[in-house]
């Protein structure tokens, strides 16, 4: 009986619930010799883990906790891939706007096989797909155009296409795995290229401008839709343009 009474006070009660700032979701004094990992929106105050942002508390096995929320503004985080806009070119760095509090630096040598001799040329206003490699508070974040192995991968300049801004929650949904129903349904009937940055920027490119318009409108309209609703919305949309 005692064992059954316990879960009522266990942290599991808050998982997948919407929490608001100030709520205490975990009590560390009940943990013995366990490691837990805290993600965005949580902070530790002695033995209490409390919430800083409103959103849904998520738990992933074995030990990760975070608050899932959606913002218009981006706060850079290590190893996240973002879409940046080049705002200035300096001798050592490109200055890139990633929607964060501070301008980010993209070193001119942070490209595959980058040397002083072959510095890439970016014009002001160019859109680049980059990875955040340093994000310390009080410093400008640093970006890189290579993956962790130093390969260019998909990173680099995005030519043509159309870029629009959404919330960070929507871009996370687009990147979720398995593929979100919205992109899956669109991909069945249309062919397009898409790049999603975790900072809430989405770039779409296709052969015909009308496809770009359809895809970007579908994405922008899906902000608060569930998986099934997304499917229905896409089906209706594609029927109408036929």
């Amino acid at each position, binding site marked *: 009986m005692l064992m059954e009474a316990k879960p009522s006070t266990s942290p599991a009660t808050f998982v997948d619930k919407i929490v608001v700032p100030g709520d205490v979701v975990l009590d560390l004094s009940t943990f013995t010799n366990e490691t837990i990992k805290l993600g965005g929106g949580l902070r530790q105050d002695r033995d209490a883990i409390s919430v*800083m942002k*409103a959103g849904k508390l998520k738990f992933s096995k074995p030990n990760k906790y975070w608050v899932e929320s959606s913002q218009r503004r981006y706060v850079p985080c290590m190893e996240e891939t973002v879409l940046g806009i080049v705002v200035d070119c300096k001798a050592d760095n490109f200055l890139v706007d990633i929607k964060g509090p501070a301008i980010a630096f993209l070193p001119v040598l942070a490209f595959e096989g980058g040397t002083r001799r072959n510095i890439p040329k970016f014009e002001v206003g160019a859109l680049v797909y980059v990875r955040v490699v340093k994000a310390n508070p009080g410093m400008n974040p640093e970006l890189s155009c290579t993956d962790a192995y130093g390969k260019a991968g998909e990173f680099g300049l995005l030519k043509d296409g159309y870029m629009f801004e959404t919330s960070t929650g929507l871009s996370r949904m687009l990147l979720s795995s398995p593929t979100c129903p919205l992109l899956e349904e669109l991909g069945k009937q249309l062919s397009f290229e898409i790049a999603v940055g975790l900072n809430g920027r989405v770039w779409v490119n296709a052969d015909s401008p009308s496809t770009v318009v359809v895809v970007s409108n579908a994405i922008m309209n899906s902000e608060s839709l569930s998986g099934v609703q997304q499917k229905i919305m896409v089906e209706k949309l594609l029927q109408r343009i036929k």
Partner: protein
Amino acid sequence: MEVDRTDGRTPNQLRPLACSRRILHRAHGSASWSQGDTKVLVAVYGPKAGTKKNENPEKACIEVVWKPKTGQIGKPEREFEMILKRTLQSICVLTVNPNTTTSVIVQVVHDDGALLPCAINAACAALVDAGIPMKHLAVAIFCCLAESGYVILDPTKLEEQKMKAFVYLVFPNSILSVLPEVSSTMKGEPMEHGIITSVTHGAMSENDYFLCLERGRAASAKLSDFLRRSLQSKVPGDSSKAG
């Protein structure tokens, strides 16, 4: 004690509350909050790079801009800005994004009494919408002391003018916690009994002040519930209403 209020409310009754979030397209966070006919619209921009002069660059800075319904900004508005700024500074976690500034723009849509508490509630909802890290939420309440010595809450403009003294009170919201009851209290009192801000105007005896505090606390529980419910509503654009 019988109190006649022009709108037929009981002394402790609040006006209908309404709150909607994410109503402005370009702001990073926005909310409108209304208490009866008093309505305030708040937009939050930021965190933006750098702090202003005379601010501590090792902490995040909060800037408040008050926009009156008509006319120029005067001394009372400057005071509102200051109170709002201090209140928000104490509920936000300022060390997460050092050397940044968050702008809070308060637009008064209509003033029918209890304007500043309404603005504090709206600003709190807007900060949550913008995802600014916060220690906890705050709920503000306006307590009035009438000539005959009774206390009324959330007065209209007319009632406000007839009062001999009033106090703005801001309390932390009631939090949900997994901690056992004992450790979530401070010296035997629950967290939500703490006072974040208290501003009094006019002459008020000690007993009257404590009476206001007690009534305010009782009403803040209701406001706190409403704030939680409106933040938990799934679609932020949807307005939620409570009687």
